[in-house]
């Protein structure tokens, strides 16, 4: 049962991601990225990590992809402008490099020397939300309070930086 579900979801993730990177219209690409993120959230639930699945849906789908859609609509007008032809040489180079990466890494991890894949059927207990919350804010040695606070400062800095960068300079727009 779990196997069939995994294969269906993995096919969905790979198909939607391929569509997202290869569709000529960026708007369609961003929408298929939403599908890929939903299927990934389902995979997280299959891995018994409910909190990560919920964070994926809320942060990625509700935040980042919607943000990206707004920017696409603001800059390229329904995503159909800025549609340029990619040279065949560049397409060949991209396919070659990514194929080399895929098969090289597959060969590397499937080698006899890698002990990573040995005895990998042990199931961990499901990670509950309250465990994650307590761990995220605990000040003990294995707590994550310091990166949590640093992330909050980083978010503030990024927000202020984004506002400063995107602000319209007075007088510059009229000249051009």
């Amino acid at each position: 049962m779990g196997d069939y579900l995994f294969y269906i979801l993995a096919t969905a993730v790979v198909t939607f991601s391929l569509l997202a990177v290869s569709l000529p219209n960026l708007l369609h690409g961003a929408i298929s990225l939403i599908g890929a993120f939903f299927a990934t959230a389902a995979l997280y639930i299959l891995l018994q990590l409910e909190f990560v699945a919920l964070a994926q849906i809320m942060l990625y789908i509700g935040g980042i992809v919607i943000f990206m859609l707004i920017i696409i609509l603001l800059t390229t007008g329904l995503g159909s402008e800025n549609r340029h032809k990619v040279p065949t040489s560049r397409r060949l180079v991209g396919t070659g490099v990514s194929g080399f990466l895929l098969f090289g890494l597959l060969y590397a991890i499937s080698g006899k020397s890698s002990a990573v894949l040995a005895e990998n059927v042990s199931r961990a207990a499901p990670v509950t939300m309250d465990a994650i919350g307590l761990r995220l804010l605990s000040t003990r040695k294995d707590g994550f309070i310091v990166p949590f606070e640093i992330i909050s400062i980083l978010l503030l800095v990024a927000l202020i930086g984004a506002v400063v960068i995107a602000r319209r300079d007075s007088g510059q727009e009229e000249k051009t």
Partner: protein
Amino acid sequence: MTLSHFIVLSLMLCAIGVHGVLTRRNLIGILLSVEVILNGANLNFAAFAHFRASDPTAGAIFPIFVMAVSACEMAVALAIIISMYRRKRRLDVYRLEELNG
């Protein structure tokens, strides 16, 4: 459903993202491909937390940090894209030649 299934899946996502980064011409398209790569990396973290980790909670927390950093990166990158669009009216990376060394 074993660890190697998930590793192969995230490897495929990484290769798809690299392909997108190398072949897209639009800046927003490149950002979209980077999101695909980050998605694969998060899936790998989650799979290792489920199958191998002695402490799966830490493996569940790390993708959340990756998501937060990715949100910061997206905000700053999209601000840069907006200001660049205002200046040049186009986002084609083949035409952005000021930084050619």
